């Protein structure tokens, strides 16, 4: 998976304006002439990660309650940022849905898929093209934490964005 971090045009423009009034080179996002800023449109794949690397670590794993598929508010804010990035720079993503070990394995496969679908639907709602997203459920087959206790189970009920 390509790791390109770019979260908002505003951030980009802001950082460029802080740099000064020189003119950006390749991959121009904004062109500056005489201290005046004119925003340009962002073309697909026109931004390279190196020029826009950010320190913001947006979570790529989203956690769920037992037998539940509701997104937490933290997950929603993180997904909004991912959606923004995917809108401006479409890339294929996979959403890997997981469940904790309790209950039946195939039911947990369905639960993992439902969780993946909830994340997918949120991204679509935020403007990401559905054709970019594939949901794959692993059920309880790929635990992130191997213990049989509440802490491990909480770590395992998740969707990973890849």
């Amino acid at each position: 998976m390509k790791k390109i971090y770019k979260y908002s045009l505003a951030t980009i423009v802001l950082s460029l304006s802080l740099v000064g009034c020189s003119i950006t080179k390749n991959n121009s996002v904004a062109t500056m002439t005489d201290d005046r800023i004119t925003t340009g449109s962002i073309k697909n794949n026109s931004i390279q990660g190196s020029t826009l690397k950010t320190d913001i670590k947006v979570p790529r794993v989203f956690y769920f309650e037992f037998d539940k598929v509701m997104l937490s508010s933290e997950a929603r804010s993180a997904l909004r940022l991912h959606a923004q990035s995917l809108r401006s720079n479409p890339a294929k993503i996979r959403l890997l849905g997981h469940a904790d070990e309790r209950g039946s394995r195939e039911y947990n496969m369905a639960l993992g898929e439902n969780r993946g679908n909830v994340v997918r639907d949120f991204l679509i709602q935020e403007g990401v093209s559905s054709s970019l997203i594939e949901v794959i459920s692993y059920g309880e087959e790929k635990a992130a934490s191997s213990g049989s206790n509440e802490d491990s189970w909480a770590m395992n009920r998740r969707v990973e964005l890849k």
Partner: protein
Amino acid sequence: MKKINLIIILFAFISLSASAELSINITKGIDNPTKIAIAPLSFYGNQLPEDTSRIIEDNLKRSGLFDPISRKNMLSFPGTIKDIYFRDWKILGAEYLVIGSLILSGDFYEITYSLLEVHSSRLVFTKIAKGSKGQLRDLSHHISDEVYEAITGIEGAFSTKVAYVTSLKSNNKTLYKLMVSDVDGARERLILESNHPIMSPSWSPDAKELVYVSFETGRPAVFRQNLANANRKQLTNFRGLNGAPSWSPDGKKLALVLSKDGNPEIYTFDLRKEKFIRHTNHFAIDTEPNWAPDSKSLVFTSDRGGSPQIYRLTLKNGEVQRLTFRGSYNARPRLASNGRTLVMIHRSAHQFHIATQDLVNGDLRILSNTSLDESPTVSPNSAMLLYATKINNRGVLAAVSLDAGVKFLLPSKQGDVREPAWSPK
């Protein structure tokens, strides 16, 4: 005196190797098991590669219904009926005695064996079993079946096999294996090895093939594999879930779950026409189909009522009927071959147990007392079931009789073991 000649068909996956990775610990037996003596088999010549009498003894002991008399206490080792002194066996408290003698004729072993009732000094039967040189274990299981059935009236299931999945973690990598062994854990054979998860093995009714789910393509997909020649074929390649395959008892179809249309639905797949038919249409989860013995209906798990419960689907008219009402989590149904006993995962007091429900009188019975029990599978004679559980943070297989009188564990020596599937006869 009826004589039965038995030639057991040799499958290519049966070999001489008897290195069992699974061993048996009996944790609970019934109160008054039948005392039986299995006299060592008499034969001339070199030592046999397998201790036939010991295998029979272990089989009967594991059923929980028998208490075999220790060989070291036996006063004589009769090989034929005329050598029996019933007094020797009455002293030991034996209710039944099994004797036998083996001869090698050509490339075949021929075992003549007899079951006797000690108290009345009565011969129950004498039978003959024949098999090739590599089949001493098969012969032992067959004799166990005959003895078990003659005494209990229930068909034996010692000649069956079990498929299961193991996983072993090392250096952050997990190795998954699909295995098949005798139901006593012996003659373990590797069927598939993968770095990706393997799930949900299900037997063909002739016990020559397995269907299962493998993630080797990066997505879950259903595969069919012949055990004798390892030929395999990918049967599904849809977006979303491709899972929970279950082979119909008439051999013609698979039931499975696909979510290609948006959410998990029950389908059947005609193996000859290679055609899928969708049978459920509900926004809830529908999964884990399992066939009734007559191949006319399916039981499955659905959360359409708000929590996972078991439903029955009649295929000819698509009628769906809810079967379970007690508890907020009933899943992974399996119907016993009697068509009456439903076996499932049942949650009670936040713990997941194996339970049975009698479909005629509705009686619910919890059979296991560990807390993470799953994947129950019933023996073809409906006497025992195997399931997976966790003990000391390791996945192990456990067995329990359907009346909960007998329990034993089959711990693996390495890694986690799970998803047992008991083969048909």
